[in-house]
């Protein structure tokens, strides 16, 4: 590519701090972490290189493998659940119901809460000795069971439940904004054609909400990788490995277990995972732009 004009000196100088931050803070710390993952660092950074030993240790750890599996289950169900529930809520509010703004506030409210609070509330509600199970039993239904939080097979779904409860409001707001942007003419036309309401939503409204829902989904997906506080508040990774997640595995090893090497190896794998997941999308976008440019 040929340089068309001289770079503006003052603009370059103005951008220097940004460049500095980008290189030192983002790339620098990432490189530092990756470097540490090849050393035998424990509590403090060490410069004794051990090759891929930390990685082989990582992938022979049942806890790490369980955490990957858990975050996958959680991530898919959480994002899908939020999108579905959020869309349904938005569609319901879009019917020009009474007290719409009150409902909107109620549904969005959970999103304003910290994950720690959400986690604690749901932990109490689902705790068989304190919460819903105990209350229902005290009303007389003695055999009622709702013990998701302490049940190995169900604990991860308890997390999904709490997560969806928190995140659906965000999707609702974004989807509702999108729906309000759709022209009323389309509704009128569809009505005249006698198309049922649900069909209008599925075939006409939903496709137009694509970009809005994609943005919401992307926001949620980024949260999934970082999932930590809700797990700590609700189950602390238990019972056993049932709700262990990578972020918690990394934090535990960074601090409690004084195991920098293993923790940074985990973090590196996580970053690689994100890159691998995002790369195809970027590639498709890139190709699409190119195709557009050519046309």
């Amino acid at each position: 590519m040929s340089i068309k004009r001289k770079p503006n000196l003052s603009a370059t100088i103005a951008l220097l701090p940004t460049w500095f931050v980008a290189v030192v803070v983002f790339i620098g710390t990432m490189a530092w972490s990756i470097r540490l993952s090849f050393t035998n660092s424990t509590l403090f950074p060490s410069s004794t290189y051990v090759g891929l030993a930390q990685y082989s240790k990582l992938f022979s750890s049942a806890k790490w493998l369980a955490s990957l599996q858990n975050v996958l289950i959680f991530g898919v169900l959480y994002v899908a659940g939020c999108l579905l529930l959020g869309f349904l809520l938005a569609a319901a509010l879009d019917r020009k119901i009474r007290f719409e703004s009150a409902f909107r506030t109620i549904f969005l409210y959970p999103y304003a809460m910290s994950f720690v609070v959400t986690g604690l509330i749901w932990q109490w509600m689902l705790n068989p000795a304190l919460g819903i199970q105990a209350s229902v039993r005290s009303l007389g239904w003695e055999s009622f069971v709702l013990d998701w939080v302490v049940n190995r097979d169900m604990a991860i779904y308890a997390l999904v439940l709490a997560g969806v409860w928190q995140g659906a409001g965000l999707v609702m707001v974004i989807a509702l904004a999108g729906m309000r942007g759709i022209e009323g003419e389309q509704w009128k036309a569809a009505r005249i054609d006698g198309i049922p309401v649900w069909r209008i939503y599925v075939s006409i409204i939903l496709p137009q909400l694509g970009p809005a829902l994609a943005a919401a989904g992307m926001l949620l997906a980024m949260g999934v990788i970082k999932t930590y506080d809700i797990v700590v508040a609700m189950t602390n990774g238990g019972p056993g490995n049932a709700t262990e997640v990578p972020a918690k595995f990394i934090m535990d090893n960074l601090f409690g277990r004084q195991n920098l090497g293993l923790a940074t190896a985990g973090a590196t794998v996580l970053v690689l995972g994100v890159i691998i997941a995002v790369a195809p999308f970027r590639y498709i976008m890139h190709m699409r732009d190119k195709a557009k440019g050519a046309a």
Partner: protein
Amino acid sequence: MKTMMKLFLAGVAFAGLSASAHAEDKPTIEIMSSWTSGGEAAALNVIKTEFEKRGGVWKDSSIAGFGAADAAFQNRIVAGDAPGAKQGVIGLAAADFISQGLFNPIDDVAAAGKWADALPKSIHDLITYDGKVYLAPTGAHGESWLFYSKEAFEKAGISQEPKTWDELFADLDKLKAAGMVPVAWGGQPWQQTKVFNMILLSQVGIDGFLKIYVDKDKSPASVEGVKKTLEILGKLRGYVDAGAAGRNWNDATAMLITAKAGVQFMGDWAKGEFTVAGKEPGKDYGCMIVPESKGMVYIADSLWFPKTGKAETDKAQKLLAEVVMDPAVQVEFALKKGSVPMRADVDKSKLDVCAQKGVELMAAGAIVPDQAIVLTPQQVGALDDFVDEYWSGGSDDTASAAGNFFAIFE
């Protein structure tokens, strides 16, 4: 790379220094601890009161949860803004900090107070690194205790302490039949590991226990001992309530205090909770070493003294070390916290019946160290994982589980 790290730390420390340039003359210290439960806070207050009486200024920064406090402490150290003192266990956890030169030795205080004579030799060895004393011991805890509610035992018709595990399980059945929760189970990994250890000690004895944890011995006798331990641990699953997962130890103790549950396996710090609730040992609740055990697992707490670069803090650290090892403070602290004094020369008559049992076992040398003393933090974590996985996994395959246990040391 080390020098770069040091430069970085020094830079941050310098930035911190200039901010607090107007230092007070009084010895000021910030104490970081995870002692936040009723009994623990009362015990910490004993040290605080005496420290302030001797002219020190005390700043409390307690953080609930052992792991959370550790994480916060490491962050502060790396940021070059170390607190003046940190509560931590005696053992390998402090070794890394000391080898990096981040802690102040308190050699002169120890020499002046003749700590070498006052402390059991094994403890004195553990607080000494490269010939210098670094840690100020606060108290030792016995961890093999089985506490029971006398009221609950009475209701269930149990008249005497069980001597064997079989008798204990028979008693637990009685408690269950009487409509109580037999075992108040603390459902956090570290608590479960302690139960595993106390059962292990009762099965393999003191020598066997040391062989496994210190020598990492994998002989058939050790494997057999671990298998028997896992069997007993697995059997206990049938006696805990549905809300046990993730439960705090003090919440479990509360179940005994209110006679909702019969027994609790816990370290003697649980006594602090009973004391705060106005319950007396021997009268309202009983304490016994777990059945068939000829000794006690112990853990020892201490105060660590990071380098802060402030003169008044250095002064305060020495004063604090002096206060902590004061014989009267040691006894008072032990009474409030439920622990056993570290000094051998204190007035034991004030201690309660449980602590006296503990002191006897200690004096007789019938003690084995907690895993945090002999294992690295990584191995301690792996041990927690192992016990938690076995406990919550519901597997009864003790042979393969025992294999996983010995893999911790590899």
